[in-house]
């Protein structure tokens, strides 16, 4: 199996209206749905993309999770399962780092979940990473993925 590593770094940001976009090299600019398509790379078995996120936007919004690094859920489809590992995901409705953006179906626009609803994604789409664990247990991420897959299948 070959892993395709996208060598160009993409830069994620929110515009003044809170709309997420992804900028590549040159003038390439992707809207949220196109960005999601790039990250999911459904035409590839294994792929890898490197993205920067918008710290300024998150900080300006008081570190509220809805302004954090976005991850996506389309509720009527289960072909892709997003899982986000981050040591700064907190069990806190007002201070966490990942924004879960949701839509009912693929013909709708994404909206940010509330801080309360984001907490409910822990163990399914979010995994707070106490880094002590994966440093000492090389299988820790795999174990969390397996737990998330069980929880996702039960939804």
């Amino acid at each position: 199996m070959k892993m395709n590593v996208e060598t160009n770094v993409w830069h994620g940001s929110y515009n003044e209206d809170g709309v997420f976009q992804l900028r590549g090299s040159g003038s390439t600019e992707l809207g949220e749905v196109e960005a999601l398509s790039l990250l999911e790379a459904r035409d590839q078995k294994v792929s890898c993309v490197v993205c920067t996120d918008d710290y300024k936007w998150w900080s300006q919004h008081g570190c509220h999770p809805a302004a954090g690094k976005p991850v996506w859920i389309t509720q009527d489809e289960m072909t892709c399962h997003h899982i986000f590992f981050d040591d700064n995901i907190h069990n806190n409705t007002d201070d966490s780092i990942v924004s879960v953006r949701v839509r009912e179906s693929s013909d709708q626009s994404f909206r940010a979940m509330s801080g309360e609803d984001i907490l409910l994604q822990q163990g399914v789409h979010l995994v707070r990473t106490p880094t002590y664990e994966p440093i000492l247990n090389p299988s820790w991420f795999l174990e969390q993925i397996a737990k998330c897959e069980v929880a996702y299948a039960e939804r």
Partner: protein
Amino acid sequence: MNESEVGTKPKLILHFDVNETIMIGDPAGGDTLEDCLNKIICKSAYVRGKDQAMSSSQATLPTHWYDGTHVSDTPPSLYTEWEIPDGAVSYYRSGRAVRRYQKNFTEPGSPGAAYRDSYDEMKAALLWPSNEDSPPPDPRLSHDGVHHFLIPAFFRTISTLAQQGRSFSIVIRTFGSDADDVAHALNAFAEGKHLPYSPCLR
């Protein structure tokens, strides 16, 4: 996992933060490897108190570990669960006064000195394996030639999923200036430079 199980599972889109999630030590951000290891332990050492990370109050140091033990006594084990014990907060987020200890938490004389064994254990786990016959690590995978740039668990995840025949995307997510370095490390991995985890991708 057999082929039919693999074929029915959704494609995994795995997002990994970089700093202190898969990368330990951020010289560009002002944190050495040792600073980061201390911060990691400080975040998993729980004390009695309230979360003060977003405020400038709480100018005094915590007095009790979360199990009620006085901080001068042997502390409980590090706490890594999602659910926060009632009335507890990580030492790291317990107020303004603790900031001076976050990067040296386990040093002698610091409040978390009793956790020094955990610090040593983590540091040892980050050593690049070496013996007399082994070649030096690819500099993209070990910047100092001694420690892993990205933790082994990250590469084991990719390697194992590939061996299982899973369809997956890795998405690196960072606020920092480390994106290019991570891309270079992933390319080294894809080239087979990270034994024993790379060969399944060749």
